């Protein structure tokens, strides 16, 4: 096991940030913490990277105890905080050199590991970090977190505020790092990214709702979901919510995701209901369950 967390709790005064969290991450696994803002993801990261003490519970990272061996953990983990936190007034190369030195290594020594990422920003190595674009900053931050060849990599919302192309690239990079045997714990508020993880933990209000592979989590969803749309989306949501057999109604892109309380649900019935309400161009069709649907259902 690369990370084991058992019964971790943490509160700030009266606010409970984490409540009895337990999970394991296997070596070389890409594990995702999926949850909305304020769910406690960052607190958990700060505890696991030895920046914060947990009120209760124990955990090990890379085989070391969180409290007794915190010094060893610091040499073996890479941490990329949610906010870009490198020296804006140092150049790309100086930042990388700085982190290499304080980890007691050099860029050359671990160049293999960061090569793929670093070559993309190497043309700008004399540019100050503050002047880089968002995607490049993120690549630099990842390079800095990897420079000492960590066994476990913690990425706290690495793709928040990054454009879709860079996000996609970033996840491809993570997949390749995973192949090199690095355990990765990544948090994200984006449900679509969850599908790219080996396993995910859905977390809300400091509690873990469910832990499983993305496919399994989706299969757990008990209902059949229908995509519904018409000309008046806002009115549609109101009318669907007013429908006597509705189970859940959530806007989802250009459709509304609708589930019915009954096993035997006939789409024609709903269509007639909506027509009565004056909707036109009605489409009702079954659709695939996503992690977001599952999350919404669990978080209900």
């Amino acid at each position, binding site marked *: 096991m690369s990370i084991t967390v058992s019964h971790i709790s943490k509160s700030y005064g009266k606010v409970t940030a984490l409540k009895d969290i337990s999970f394991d991450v296997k070596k070389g696994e890409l594990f995702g913490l999926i949850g909305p803002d304020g769910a406690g993801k960052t607190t958990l990261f700060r505890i696991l*990277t*030895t*920046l*914060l*003490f947990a009120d209760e519970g124990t955990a090990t990272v890379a085989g070391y105890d969180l409290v007794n061996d*915190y*010094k060893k953990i*610091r*040499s073996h*983990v890479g*941490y990329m*905080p949610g*906010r*870009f*936190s*490198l*020296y*804006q*007034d*140092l150049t790309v190369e*100086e930042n990388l*050199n*700085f*982190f290499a*030195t*304080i*980890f*007691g290594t050099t860029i050359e020594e671990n160049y293999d590991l960061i090569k793929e990422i670093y070559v993309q920003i190497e043309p700008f190595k004399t540019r100050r970090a503050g002047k880089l674009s968002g995607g490049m900053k993120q690549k630099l931050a990842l390079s*800095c977190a990897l420079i000492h060849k960590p066994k476990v990599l913690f990425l706290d919302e690495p793709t928040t505020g990054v454009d879709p192309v860079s996000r996609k690239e970033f996840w491809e990079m993570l997949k390749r790092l995973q192949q090199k045997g690095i355990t990765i714990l990544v948090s994200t508020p984006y449900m679509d990214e969850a599908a790219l993880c080996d396993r995910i933990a859905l977390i809300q209000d400091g509690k873990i709702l469910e832990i499983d592979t993305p496919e399994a989590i989706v299969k757990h969803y008990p209902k059949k979901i229908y995509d519904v749309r018409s000309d008046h989306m806002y009115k549609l949501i109101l009318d669907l919510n007013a429908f006597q057999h509705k189970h859940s109604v959530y806007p989802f892109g250009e459709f509304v995701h609708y589930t019915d309380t009954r096993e035997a649900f006939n789409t024609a019935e709903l269509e007639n209901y909506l027509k009565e309400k004056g909707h036109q161009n009605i489409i009702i069709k079954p659709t695939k369950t996503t992690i977001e649907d599952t999350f919404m259902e669990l978080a209900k």
Partner: protein
Amino acid sequence: MKTILFIIQKEFKQIFRNKGMLPIIFVLPLLQLVILSNAATFEIKNIKFSYVDRDHSTTSRALIKKFNASTYFNVLQAFPSQAIANEAMLQGKVDVVLEIPKYFERNLQKEKHTKLGITINAIDGAAAGVENVYVTQILQQFNKKLATKLMQPTDVKNRPKSIESIPLFWYNETLNYKTFMVPGILVLLVTMITLFLSGMNIVREKEIGTLEQINVTPIKKYQFIIGKLFPFWVIGFGLLTIGLILGKVIFNVPIIGSLPLIYFYTGIYLFVILGMGFFISNFTDTQQQAMFIAWFFVVIFILMSGLFTPIESMPQWAQQITELNPVKYFVQVMRMVMLKGASFTDILPQILKTATYAIVMNGLAVWSYKKTN
């Protein structure tokens, strides 16, 4: 060791890349040195002087002439009556009014005795005191001359013996105010700049989030602290050096004592200030907070340092508080070594107190710096 060197190198790079910071570190303090040393003076000059002459005699005119000749007084005008003179003082047009009574000359000659009325604006008590001394000096000189003039040959035998004191002003013979102020203001600048910079520096890493990143690394507490503070130690010396050169070149301030001794003491003193800055930054989350707290201490330290007002004239409780003021010791040492040529043993008490202070302050700072929170 390599890590420390690398952090120091990084700090210097950041300081010298910060285009807004460099002038603040080096140019502004030196401007202050030049301006303050010239402006912050207790010498009272250009006193607005006026008079009411009711006598209109040769003697009264001679007395006014005396005031006219003095560089301290600006004889503005004669008022016809005391009431008008009082009105002018109320409006702040004059500081000192001399009233020469009627029969001034006659009384002097006949009775060898007369009285003069002097009114001084005493809103600034210290200044009024100094003005009083100046007026008295001029009157005494005038009196002496007059006495000789009025003396009859028969009086010579009975001439009263008088005691005259001739003061010698040691260590600052010409009573040059700048000689006294420049070492003090230099202390002020070195203290202010190093305290602000060190206080804000670590908070800045907190603000931009790099501290969190660094805390996850295996870097040792002492490596980080030394690496962070050493550059400001060097900058403190840099400021002292430039200040001493300017003091010598522009103000011709004597440096009688040994320069290495000044640097040796400054080295210890800077530890106190850096420790203090570091301590402040451990308890603050933003540069703004750090700045306010640093200001609070700097103002108290400076006003209670004996730089502008003598510690001896403070109330007893305040004098005891100044024992805790590192700036006081630095001001004392600078003045003692630069102006009196004090030796190592002379300033040993100050060295010991400052060194103790440095150990306590840095101990507290290291103790309060936590990599976890």
